[in-house]
């Protein structure tokens, strides 16, 4: 039975990747948004290296946050419309496990590319080279939290008119701790504060809490939305 569950989760995960591979514009939207937003800052603030460097951790993290928020609508919306979400609810496997597989795929398609792309944008924001490792690390730890937390409001607002904006309003306040620790970690290793390890450990702890909580909460939210 256990193999059955893992195989079902793997099927949900790979199917999600396949669907988004064939509908790649949605994935690209979030990435391009991330690139454009971070590019706007040097243009608006001017190429003063020191000022850019001071802003860099915050700007990169806020842009990653907004890009993830933008992509949250894709998590359940199309499955909701074509009825495959309904089918998922009557599957003989725990819904939270299948939802976890969906969230994992969402992260692979948004959070992971954001983290991998961030070093390029960090150079543009004049972030010191020594802080780039921390930036990637903090995004690798932080973006899964964003996908996991975001799944709950994304599930709750299914079928609500104007749900997309509502998701942003609901989710952005919940993202603030991640933003604070993530940006602080990067700022610290750029030499503007305490050691970055503490912030990264807090992010890790946060991730551990959210992994155990969010799939369950969003599957409960799905049951409410589809009732």
């Amino acid at each position, binding site marked *: 039975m256990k193999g059955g569950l893992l195989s079902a989760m793997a099927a949900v995960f790979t199917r999600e990747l396949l669907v988004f591979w064939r509908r790649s514009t949605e994935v690209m939207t979030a990435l391009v948004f991330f690139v454009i937003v971070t590019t706007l800052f040097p243009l608006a603030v001017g190429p003063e290296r020191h000022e850019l460097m001071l802003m860099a951790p915050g700007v990169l993290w806020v842009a990653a946050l907004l890009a993830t928020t933008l992509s949250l609508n894709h998590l359940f919306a199309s499955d909701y419309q074509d009825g495959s979400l309904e*089918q998922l609810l009557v599957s003989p496997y725990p819904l939270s496990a299948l939802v976890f597989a969906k969230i994992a795929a969402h992260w692979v398609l948004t959070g992971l590319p954001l983290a991998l792309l961030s070093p390029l944008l960090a150079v543009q924001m004049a972030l010191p080279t020594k802080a780039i490792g921390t930036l990637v690390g903090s995004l690798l730890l932080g973006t899964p939290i964003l996908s996991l937390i975001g799944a709950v409001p994304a599930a709750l607002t299914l079928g609500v008119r104007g749900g997309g904006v509502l998701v942003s309003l609901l989710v952005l306040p919940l993202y603030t701790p991640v933003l604070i620790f993530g940006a602080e970690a990067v700022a610290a290793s750029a030499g503007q504060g305490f050691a970055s390890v503490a912030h990264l450990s807090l992010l890790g702890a946060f991730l551990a809490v959210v992994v155990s909580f969010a799939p369950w909460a969003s599957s409960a939210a799905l049951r409410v939305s589809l009732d």
Partner: protein
Amino acid sequence: MTSHSLFSVRGLACARGDRTLFAGLSLQLDAGEAIHVRGPNGLGKTTLLRALCGLSRPLRGDVRWRGERTSDLAEEFAAEVAYVGHLNGVQGELTAAENLERAIRVFARGPDAALGVAAALDRVGLARLAGKPARHLSQGQKRRLALARLLVLRRPLWILDEPFTALDVAAVASLSSLIGEHMAGGGLALIVSHQAFELPGIRDFDLAQFCKVRS
């Protein structure tokens, strides 16, 4: 007074919003039996089916499978039911065959697929379109693909909401014979449909008798 029916419903009441749709609904279904639920629009036929397969929570009542409450059985019960709702549950980006393969892996428990993907597609007349993305299929073809899911999963209880929608005459006949075979093999079926169809042995069930006089 325990009922020995495979699937039994007693005293079921469902609401939509704050309006009670029906109350005191009871029905019994045994191996090889099928029920055709009838009633005018807005009576709560879809709500009934969704409540029976566990998608929505009824106000009151007792739904039992093999004598045990389905809410207690949870996933055990889900492994016995195949539900085809108004929405087809067909992913447009995946091909017809991929849709079914995924259904087998996500919904079948272990390797108990009843019919192979190719055979199921052939049975519903989609063999030629196996490699086509499902979004290029017509409404009726998507419906057939949703029904092919019934064939790749071995589920005793079929819950079908308007399964004949968008199907052509030949497909309607083929689906009725499919349900007939399912019953002959000891399967159970609950069907909501406005369409007349030929199926020997199916019982009519009028939902209106459990609805209060509506204002």
